[in-house]
């Protein structure tokens, strides 16, 4: 995974999801776009919203709230699709809001072990303390690709007419 390291700094794209702040390395983010029409794909997991047309390229889009089991709400003016590069494939992740691009010193990133997390949380790779706030550093490639593939294999067969 490409990481943008500037001296001993890292740049994070920080987004908001159900009140929590999460960050991903800017090197993995291709672009951030507004919500747009999504074409639903049948027979895919619930959190796969469908595909969008990104200037002629068709890329899948996932709802991160659904993926992380958070409460599902309506999309707003602030809702964004963060397009990330996962192993050469672009994938869109729907987040509540993109708040900032943050420069943090590498040594201010703490390992995630201090934080209480669910059992499938190996995609949380670190935590940054910013005053009273916590930014949870995610590695979306892990969150989206591996278990995604596992899910694909378990899809139900076609519903009989």
């Amino acid at each position: 995974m490409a990481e943008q390291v500037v001296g001993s700094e890292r740049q994070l794209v920080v987004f908001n999801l159900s009140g929590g702040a999460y960050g991903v390395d800017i090197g993995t983010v291709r672009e951030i776009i507004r919500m747009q029409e999504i074409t639903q794909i049948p027979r895919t997991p619930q959190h796969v919203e469908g595909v969008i047309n990104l200037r002629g390229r068709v890329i899948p889009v996932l709802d991160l709230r659904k993926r992380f089991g958070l409460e599902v709400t309506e999309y707003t003016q602030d809702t964004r699709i963060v397009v990330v590069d996962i192993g050469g494939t672009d994938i869109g992740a729907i987040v509540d809001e993109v708040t900032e691009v943050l420069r943090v010193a590498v040594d201010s990133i703490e390992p995630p072990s201090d934080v209480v997390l669910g059992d499938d949380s190996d995609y949380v790779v670190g935590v940054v303390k910013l005053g009273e706030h916590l930014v949870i550093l995610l590695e979306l490639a892990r969150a989206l690709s591996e278990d995604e593939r596992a899910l694909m294999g378990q899809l139900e067969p076609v519903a009989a007419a």
Partner: protein
Amino acid sequence: MDLAPDVTPEDLEVFLQEADEQLRLLDEDVVRLEREPDAGELLQEIFRAAHTLKGSSGMLGYKEMAELAHHMEHLLDLFRTGALAVTTPAVDALLHSLDAMRVLRDELADPTGRSLDVSAAMAELAQAAGASAEGEPGAKDAGSAPAGAGPAAPIVLGPAARERIADLASGDAQLLAVDVHISADTIWSSVRLFQALQALGDLGEVIASEPSQSAIDSGAPSQLLRAIVSTRSSEDDVRREVGGLDDIAGVEVEPYVPEAVAKDAPDAAGAGQRRTGAGRTQTVRIDVARLDELMNQIGELVIDRTRIVQIGKALEQRYKGDDMVEALGETSAHIVKVVDELQESTRQVRMQPIGTVFSGLPRMVRDLSHKMGKKLDFQVSGSETEIDRTVIERIRDPLIHLLRNAVDHGVELPEERIAAGKPETAVLKLRAYQEQGHIVIVVEDDGRGIDTERVKAAAVKKGLISAEAGARLTEAQAIELIFLPGASTAEKTTEVSGRGVGMDIVRSNVEAINGLVTAETVLGQSTRMTLKLPLTLATLHALLVRAGTTHYAIPLVYVWETTVRNADEIPTIAGREVIRVRDAVVPLTSLSEAFGLSRAEHAAGSVRQVVVVRLGERLLGLSVDAFSESQEIVVKPLGGFLGDVKGIGGVSVLGDGQVVLIVDIPSLVNSIMARGPAEEPVAVA
């Protein structure tokens, strides 16, 4: 094997590719020769190819191959002079030698240390050459080469070369006369000549040379290469490129001034030279993956093109009469034109004559029919029909299956045919033609046909269908049974079904590329298998429909009928909605439901729009909320992330940016009608 000391990997690569082509050509031509023993031109072509192989393998120092080619050449020469008639054993001997050569070629490509013993093949050739061979076929050499290698004197121009020069001279192409002097102390002057000629070929088109390409190929040494080259490179560039090669003593370059071109008819004499020499330098081999990439990028360009036009129109509305907006309109119109041309050209580049798949098939059919003691006239037509190379790759196996089945099961033994009052020699036809945006390939034999009653009985016995269902089947539906997976295990020995070996594989291969395969038969008379294939896999003719909020594209090849029905006029049979279309009763399901999406509410009195799709003899009605026009769409894969989604074959983006899902009809129909065609209440007529 020991090769010449200074053969470079590049030389080897060139040789391997050429050998591959020559061997394929020879295979085809030798099979043809058996049927047309008197075709002098054909014999000449075979001779020439064998001679080229001898020359190029000799140049590499590949003794085994050169010797074998030499023996072949000897036998061919006997045919040519009329000393020996073309017989089946002689053709067998040639074909076996070609097989041996292919092994030799592969050994060169992938040296395993083990070397094929070619003595058996050579002995067979010698035996075929028989007594008429005066002793060892040794002494005669390249002197018989049709290209005629003379002393390195002035360049002898054939009619084809003269015509080409006249062509080029009237244009603005630059013609150069190049003399390359090979240093006297080189061991391998023939290799240097070859390299020099290659280098010139890389710079432009070599119109003629002395020694000629074939003389160089056969390894004739010379210290001087004279060539006429048409090139865009400057004289200095030519000097530098060729002079940079090893063992070159000097290069002289000057503009070539054509002499008054003699007007003696440049007729058929030159036509045979198509496959040799200069023409090759103008082609480029390219990785298919790169073409795919290019096609994909152009697909995106096409979408952007549409977008630009739309934006331009919006701007025109907003800023009427603005100079820049008008200029934008002109520019975008030009972009549209160029992009369309680009798309068409790229499509053309990917097209290949279907003959590239057909080559090799005559040989296979011949060998198989000989082995089985059947007399067969194999007729191939439409080889020039063009088809996308990605499709070509996918139809070879199905075709081989179909032809094998025809020879194996369709065509009777000569005795049987005579007893049945048919001509002793059966006719097996392979035809290809283009029809309404599709390629149709037909494999047809005049053999015993398929006994549908026995196919039914076998299917019932194997438990593929119930006896009642079997009794209900029409002829056309019964033939469909041979495509069922279970039917393919039909024991060949009992020949219950007559056919059916791997027919399910044929069908799944063909359907995988959005094609159709159908069977027709007349018992005792004929069997015809028809493949209907898309011209290309990159684009697709599809009917666009909407179901719920999702837009789908249904490949047109599967659309049988579109119809509109009143919702309250749709009867139910066994809890299942059906409609009657053209005398058939067709089960109906909504497309959204078929994909497990929300169940649509159908208010009384509302209308249902139905697309009836047909897969073989199976019909299925898919109700949708709207259908629009059919159009050609660019197929994009769904992408590795989403993987294979059952029933979705890919996606496409329309000109207005709308994403559509391409319905994989075979997979959808198979999953819905999993029980097979016989159990469906189809066609009650």
